[in-house]
């Protein structure tokens, strides 16, 4: 289930809830490991709010990364 997306000049970020951690996960973090800016962006992705655009290399998430909060969310960076 897609729960939110944001588009940027060079990056398109989306997060979807996953039931389990995929076997090929490249990075795995708990929400407490995010700094305030990344946390707000993550919350925006989950809530479907508008998130500031940004170039891909400055995204605070890795493509395929799973963030653990009250559910597990897989972040996609395109």
């Amino acid at each position, binding site marked *: 289930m897609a729960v939110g997306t944001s588009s940027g000049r060079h990056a398109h970020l989306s997060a979807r809830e996953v039931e389990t*951690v995929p076997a090929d996960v490249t990075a795995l973090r*708990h929400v407490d490991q995010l700094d*305030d800016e990344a*946390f*707000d962006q993550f919350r925006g992705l989950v809530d479907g709010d508008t998130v500031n655009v940004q170039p891909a290399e400055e995204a605070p998430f890795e493509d395929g990364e799973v963030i*653990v*909060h009250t559910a597990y969310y897989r972040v996609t960076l395109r």
Partner: protein
Amino acid sequence: MTESYVIIGDGIAGGSAAKTLREESPDADITVITDEGEPLYNRILIKEYAKGKIPMEDPLFLHDEEWYEERDIALELNTHVTHIDPDGHVVHTHEGDDYEYDALLVATGGTPRQLPVDNSDADGVHHFWTFQDARGIADHAEESEKGIVVGAGLLGIDFAAICGARGIEANYLMRGDCWWRYALSEDGAGIIHDALRELDVEPVFQSGVDHFVTDDDGQVTGAVDPNGEEFEGEFVGVSIGLDFNTEFLRGSGIETDDGIVVDEFMETNVEDIYAAGDITRFYDVILEEHAQNGSWDSAKKQGAVAAKNMTAADGEAEEFRHVSSYSISHFKDLPFVSFGHPTIGDDDRERKYSDTEWRRLTFKNGKLIGGVLIGDLKLQSVFKRIIREERDLEGQKDLLLEEDFEMEMLEAPAQEQ
């Protein structure tokens, strides 16, 4: 001459310090000593492993042994430091090895405290701190049906969540009349109690443990509370706090006070010895008094600040200035975060917005110093910023309880740092 740095402890504070030391001092000799048998892992997420939600181990390791080799950092696993000699600048270990240092960082954290009652060390009574603890808990939880949880705080609730995730029907024995009574009122705690019940974990108030009951094989079978009521359970989780690992500092002259006392630069009262992480009683420059904090982000930043100051030239020290946060993410659709210092202060405000939303804020000298948010975390970063900016909120505290509070509603300017 090449500088020598020794770090005792390889949790996130020690790991962060090792990384920073190498960045700040490319040619220095760096040694990390740990009594654990594995390198740095993600201590926040091992609770998910114990719950069975993350079945694989590899993604939980933050550093493998190659990480240390690539950075020319010596890693000494399974090594106990027995004592240190501040005059000689030497660390001694249980195997008789000596490590000389120019600057030393102590980041040894703590060890879970046992309940001072009969049979508290029986088989089936678990304490939770290390990855090895998580493995044992996972194995036992998988085959258990009835559980008992003790410790009505931020760590104890992990055991409750493990029971819930593993289908263990449990009683959660609390001494007071609500969970985390130091930071929550009954209104706030009531939301958590309801969430626990949805996990099939029943809060039991005005209770606790008088003693544990065991079978003939020494396996725990239950607990009797101070009221004489017996609760069945072959899986017991106890989290009543940490004893800080400072035994090896005896005779060193390092000041301790339920932890190692450090200034805002993470330096102890003994020259060239620093401390970071859970073990510190650090000078909080925002609070203007010494404080403690067990959060991941705080430990990580303390380690980095200590490392910078271990390598800094005179007059270039960096102070630790940080507002931490600690989330509970066990309850579906019910986020929870505590930030700053929610258990102290001279004033507080709270409001309940719905059956699942609640906010409490703590103040000292008219300034926000901490709080707890349940159900809606949209203001987490805003409140942390207000704390960092040390805004004088006299006469405006209630504004912060507005459901849709925004920074612009405040008249108080940020204080110049």
